[in-house]
């Protein structure tokens, strides 16, 4: 059943001469970074039951960047989007408490959620972006559970929009038509101009996310969150990848002392097999 209040008509764009009327921010619910991860007995995943979850740290940075743009008058409205089970409502609420205006929750539960992979998420986001008539998408560079680092790139491809990934600095031009994006890449720092509309993925040093203050947490209760399903968006989320096994990394062996360089070379060649 399509939720009629979801479409853009119900949330009219503010009259504006800013080119960024609506920003979509993705926030994924992941196992909290401080939790000690344990592999499931069936070796097909990790234990998630009863484990503390929170918003993906890179997504928090993306939310913060969106709010900063809004506070600077560069973005009119921020919509926080999350795909997953009903607990994702809390993740969206956190984004609302930080300062997002509205939320969209794409409800995916049970086995369908276990099989939800970046390509499917990118397809879901593409439909949400179209329905919301957004012209900016901010995502975290990767999720700390799957370390995928794919959704932003795939989404940009599907939308046929330019992308600025691993962003550590973001500056909107005075005319509001393009971003100057500073990217942290393996070779150093790269600066790009990325025209709007675009997809930006946030890296660690982009900003320091604010706390959602307690009064804002209470105010967030009044903000609207639309709940829809992949069927409403007509997206097929069947996984394309099958997880064969999940294992703990090998237990770390102690090192050993060597007497001289010859011994070192011998060990590197014959034991570690790196030469």
């Amino acid at each position, binding site marked *: 059943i399509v939720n009629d209040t979801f479409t853009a008509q119900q949330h009219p764009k503010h009259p504006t001469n800013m080119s960024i009327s609506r920003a979509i921010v993705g926030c994924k619910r992941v196992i909290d970074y401080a939790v000690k991860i344990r592999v499931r007995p069936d070796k097909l995943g990790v234990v998630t039951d009863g484990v503390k979850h*929170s918003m993906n740290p890179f997504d928090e940075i993306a939310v913060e960047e969106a709010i900063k743009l809004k506070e600077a008058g560069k973005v009119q409205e921020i919509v926080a989007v999350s795909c997953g089970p009903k607990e994702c409502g*809390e993740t969206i*609420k*956190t984004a609302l*408490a930080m300062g997002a205006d509205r939320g969209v929750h794409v409800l995916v539960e049970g086995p369908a959620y276990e099989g939800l992979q970046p390509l499917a998420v990118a397809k879901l986001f593409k439909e949400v972006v179209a329905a919301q008539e957004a012209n900016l998408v901010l995502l975290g560079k990767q999720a700390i559970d799957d370390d995928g680092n794919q959704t932003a790139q795939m989404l940009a491809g599907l939308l046929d929009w330019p992308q600025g990934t691993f962003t550590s600095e973001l500056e909107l031009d005075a005319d509001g038509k393009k971003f100057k994006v500073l990217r942290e890449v393996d070779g150093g720092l790269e600066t790009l101009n990325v025209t709007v509309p675009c997809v930006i993925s946030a890296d660690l040093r982009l900003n320091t996310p604010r*706390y*959602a*203050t*307690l*009064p*804002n*947490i*209470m105010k967030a*209760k009044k903000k609207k969150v639309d709940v829809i399903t992949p069927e409403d968006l007509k997206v097929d989320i069947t996984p394309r990848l099958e997880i064969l096994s999940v294992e703990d990394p090998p237990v770390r062996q102690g090192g050993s002392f060597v007497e001289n360089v010859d011994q070192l070379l011998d060990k590197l060649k014959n034991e570690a097999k790196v030469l």
Partner: protein
Amino acid sequence: MASRLWALTRPVRIYRKLQPVAKNYSNLASRPINMYSEDEIMMKELVARFSADVVAPNVKEMDRTSVMTEDVYRGLFENGIMSLEIPAEYSGVGGTFTSACLCIEEVAKVDPAVSAMVDVHNTVVNNTLSMWGSEELKERFLPSLATEYVGSFCLSEAGSGSDAFALKTTALPSTDGSHYILNGEKLWISNASQAGLFLVFANVDPSQGYKGITCFAVPRESEGLEVGPHEDKLGIRASSTCPVRFSDVKVPKENVLGDVGQGYKYAISILNEGRIGIGAQMVGLAEGCFESTMPYLFERKQFGQAIGNFQGMEMQYAEVAMEIESARLLVYNAARLKEAGLPFIKEAAMAKLKASRVAELTASKCIEWLGGVGFTKDYPAEKFYRDCKIGAIYEGTSNIQLITIAKNIKQNFQ
């Protein structure tokens, strides 16, 4: 024989009229005590983050100098942690009493001294003003208490602690009846170094005994009000505790909270519930101490294995974990009883008494488990050990809690 001690422990019937009954009472029956609402959990998590990020780095220094860091003090206000139950129309968060206890607990896990300030401000000062202050007083002071400065509750004196109503501070009415003149000295006043507002209990007519005790809202800038230097304490050192002297302080009659001569009732009432907050603080202290000590037991190896794996140690930390859980359940059940508008005085006294004992047990054991390093200031256990003692003393000593519990039980058998 109606001694003043008896007056302190007699249940106050007036109290129930002031409390709304929980709307979802029928749903509470099937929920575990440890199950909190979404809002309560969000608030708890925010405070946990704030405590870890902003408070934790300053704990040692604040304890050493006995001064609360400005960043911590301001940060508490900026994040709404000092206005947990104040309604939104007075710039507060509008949370439940349980959410306040959860926040107090989270802060105590990191620093019981900061938690003491948060607790007294929220559960004693703000709530006294909210419950008995006139609309005009609430509008005048609640927004400032929510966003700007901390408040103090001035009841105890050199000659009156447990025997609170033996207080000697007078508030004699002026001849034209427009104001009262306060004279006296209060002792052991928490938050006094920074407080912008003092809720002072003074007697308008000593010939009436405790029936003359009245509660006054006295701003810091009042002429004749003097805050003395803070005490050099064993524990919770970052929380300021000072004498406050009143020399001919003029207080307008509009600043009386509730009715003249009813102050003793308000004091008992607020302390009956405030002690649940202390219970939460002590549970947080115990939990924080326990959690900071346990990892060490699996790092420290003796006789070929981690000491945490010896049965002797397993049995000890199992006992302590059980004690912490039992104290937590007493505290949060008392909090829910209060929210539901049900009688809670006995349960609140039990909660505070148990929690303070558990805090002491936990801190003491943690130092033993840590061994030599636990005895140094390099590890957090020694501070928790010093901080826990106050739990048995303030907001009603442990002996007073026992008497309160006994009085409640006796009623059923006399």
